[in-house]
């Protein structure tokens, strides 16, 4: 518990302070009428509305849909990305690297229509889109992290009799951990953006859908509520990742 507090305390205060500063600045900008409230409503208005909506069943449903897609997509990308990154570092580079280089920069939005036809209009196509984009930073981060392992750490494990799998689990992954977490942070953000985009493009539920519906009818506050929410989700998850830092 002490350990938990120690980990949370100082960082948390700074986080709160910086976010608070941002909000105050925003409130000042919109409060002083520096921008058109039709384009950028004040944070007070947004949070008041958010608080109101959070209690509503239908709104919770939309949040749930987005979260399911986001978390499933991220988790799948994590597993595939780390696995492929390790395989790549352990000799699969010649085969996998050219594919990664080719596929990574492709704007996955463009293949979304094909994904929809393959996977349907439900969760699967959106999760597919998330995975397709989020997996690459994870592959690369894992690959480079594993490649940068100090040879003598690996030697120590080999000499202790660690098999290939044990080496991966007990040396390669922990020592690539920092890099993998960085990859996670990037992948997470990409996941957030893609879920939202997919929901904006083609969906009847989820935060992205709420936002696009609001945007089409210029309900500015309604439009900002999902945006603020996705950004809060991003912050929460990113803090969650930071929590897994070793040592």
């Amino acid at each position: 518990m002490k350990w938990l507090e120690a980990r949370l305390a100082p960082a948390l205060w700074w986080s709160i302070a910086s976010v608070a500063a941002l909000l105050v600045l925003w409130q000042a900008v919109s409060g002083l009428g520096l921008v058109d409230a039709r384009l950028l409503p004040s944070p007070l208005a947004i949070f008041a509305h958010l608080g109101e909506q959070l209690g509503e069943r239908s709104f919770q449903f939309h949040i749930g849909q987005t979260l399911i897609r986001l978390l499933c997509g991220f988790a799948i990308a994590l597993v595939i990305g780390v696995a492929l990154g390790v395989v790549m570092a352990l000799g699969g580079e010649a085969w996998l690297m050219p594919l990664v280089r080719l596929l990574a920069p492709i704007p996955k939005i463009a293949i979304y229509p094909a994904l929809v036809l393959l996977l349907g209009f439900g969760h699967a196509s959106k999760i597919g889109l998330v995975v397709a984009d989020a997996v690459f930073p994870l592959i690369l981060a894992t690959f480079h992290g594993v490649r940068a392992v100090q040879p003598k750490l690996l030697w120590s494990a080999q000499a202790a009799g660690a098999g290939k799998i044990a080496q991966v689990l007990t040396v390669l992954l922990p020592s690539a951990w920092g890099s993998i977490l960085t990859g996670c942070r990037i992948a997470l953000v990409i996941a957030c953006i893609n879920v939202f985009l997919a929901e904006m493009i083609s969906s009847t539920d989820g935060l992205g859908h709420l936002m696009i519906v609001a945007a089409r009818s210029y309900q500015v506050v309604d439009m900002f509520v999902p945006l603020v929410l996705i950004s809060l989700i991003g912050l929460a998850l990113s803090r969650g990742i930071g929590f897994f830092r070793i040592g």
Partner: protein
Amino acid sequence: MPRAAGRILRRVAPVLALLSGWQLLAMALDMEELPGAWQALQTVPQILSSGEDVGSILASLRRMAIGYVLALLMVVPLGLSMGRCQRLARVVNPLAALAYPIPKAALMPIIMLWFGIGDLSKILVIFLGVSLPLLYHSYQGALQVDEKLWWSARAMGMGAVRGMLRVVLPAALPEILLGCRVAVSMALITMISSEMIARQRGAGDLLFNALDMAVYTEVYAMIVIIAVIGLTLDALVEWARRRLTHWTDAQGAAG
């Protein structure tokens, strides 16, 4: 000579495998939305022989290059400073975590408000997309710098700013270059998607128009072109990596 041939073969083989996999999949599914590799490749010369289309692609690339270089110049120093200064990291981290997950396409109206609908907003969007991996990877790189290297430099009388430049930067370079590599693909992806809502002469415009008109061979031809551009830029980063970080001890797990 046969060795060189073998090497080229090994480079090309995965690409060929990918293309044939795609072709087979397309044939098996037989959907208009997913044309085969062959049809897509056939459309590529058509795009590349049109001066106007090439001009559009170059216009996009120009925006991308500007966004990329700006991010490199501004975000890498920020990330490195965050790695060296816990406080800064604690202030910037939550802000970054808040700002990045917002889809820029959704923010277009606000961005338009400040930066208009022209190049500037698109460059900004690309900048944000690129700066994500650059920030986190340079932060991570600077975090991992051996304390005693920094001390050694300080003891030589190096100031904090120069120390960042001459010690933290090179020590974090492998990690930064990894960020650059991820950033290349992010740059292309955001370059395209920045043109989704407010369109302008550019590669994304070509692609999304084709998508709107359901001209899928052209969509996939554009994808091929973008992938090749990505491959080229990635090779550039890889070349830089080999030149700049040959000193690392990371033959690593390969053995």
